[in-house]
């Protein structure tokens, strides 16, 4: 389905199921970019590393690592060590985003000027270039 949605001027954003199943089943090149979202926990970084390996080995598209809920320099070091050379996008851990999630609000509506949202806006703009 993803491979058939392409139209001039259209951008398709798919939110995949957790884990690697869907990424591992992608065949051909139905996407331009795979954004691998991780948290700075051992488990999440391990899953993210496997996803990144699968994307790179399968040549599935451009790989962007986005680290969510980043608290401090130790988190940043842990994330960078897990993905050497990939320059991950860092989204800070923010109470405003936690609060928006609890209320079922879009973080972009609830906290548009927060550092986390600014990081995601910058990522989106960089992908459109």
């Amino acid at each position, binding site marked *: 389905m993803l491979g058939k949605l392409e139209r001039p001027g259209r951008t398709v954003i798919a939110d995949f*199921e957790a884990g690697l*199943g869907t990424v591992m089943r992608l065949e051909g090149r139905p996407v331009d970019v795979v954004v691998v979202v991780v948290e700075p*926990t*051992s488990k999440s970084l391990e899953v993210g590393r*496997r996803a990144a390996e699968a994307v790179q080995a399968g040549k599935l598209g451009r790989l962007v690592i986005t680290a969510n809920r980043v608290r401090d320099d*130790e988190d940043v070091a842990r994330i960078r060590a897990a993905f050497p050379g990939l320059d991950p996008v860092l989204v800070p851990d923010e109470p405003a985003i936690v609060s928006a999630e609890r209320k079922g609000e879009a973080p972009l509506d609830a906290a548009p000027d927060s550092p986390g949202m600014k990081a995601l806006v910058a990522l989106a703009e960089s992908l459109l270039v």
Partner: protein
Amino acid sequence: MRVAFVGKGGVGKSSLSGSFARVLAEAGERVLAIDSDPMPGMAFSLGLEQSDAGLPDDAVEEYEEDGRQRYRLREGLTGTDAVEQYAQRAPGGVHFMQLGKARGPQWNNRRQHFGFQRLLDDLPGDGWSIVGDLPGGTRQPFLTWGRYARTFLVVIEPTPASLLTGRRLARLAETARAPRVVAIANKVREPGDAERVSSRTGLDVIGSVPFDPALADADRLGKAVLDTDPDGPTATAVRSLVQTLQKSEEQS
């Protein structure tokens, strides 16, 4: 006791199920912890190093039936044998079996996937408590990966997305005629959160686990919270949950 932890990805199933298994073992029970998620998870919360090892290839044999490839445990190997031979030993004496972990593009896990399901059909019985950590989401938790459970614990955060998954799991449980399905409210921050989980899902909430920065720290380090903060809020809540379930098992 045979329980399986289900719920949306990221709600804390692995952290709670691993801690739950350890607490049961502390209480003197013989515990088998089963991780059916093809992604790494439960090992960390049990206090084990992560490995990809599942059932070895030679534990599973392929055969043909009605023109289709099928898989079973090799001749003479029972589920109990497989647990004794291949389970890792976690702290507290917990036996740990996991589905082999996914790696690489176009990963083929047919042998591992169906071999592990045969193991689930023949788990050790009397004298064992079984604690399962299932993959996230709503895909066939009751009839496939959780087929051995007598109680399903739906882990739910008080967020709309997690509540919606919880409600869908509750409906699926009715369709699948799952034996007993109850909820655990996780990452609770406000007094009304557990009630909100109950009212939005229709499930009885049998335990409530507070949002715990110590758990986030343990997860960051890849450690079991029972080792890093053995008397903290998460450990205390899980001990209470274990006691609640033990009492309800005794009464039933």
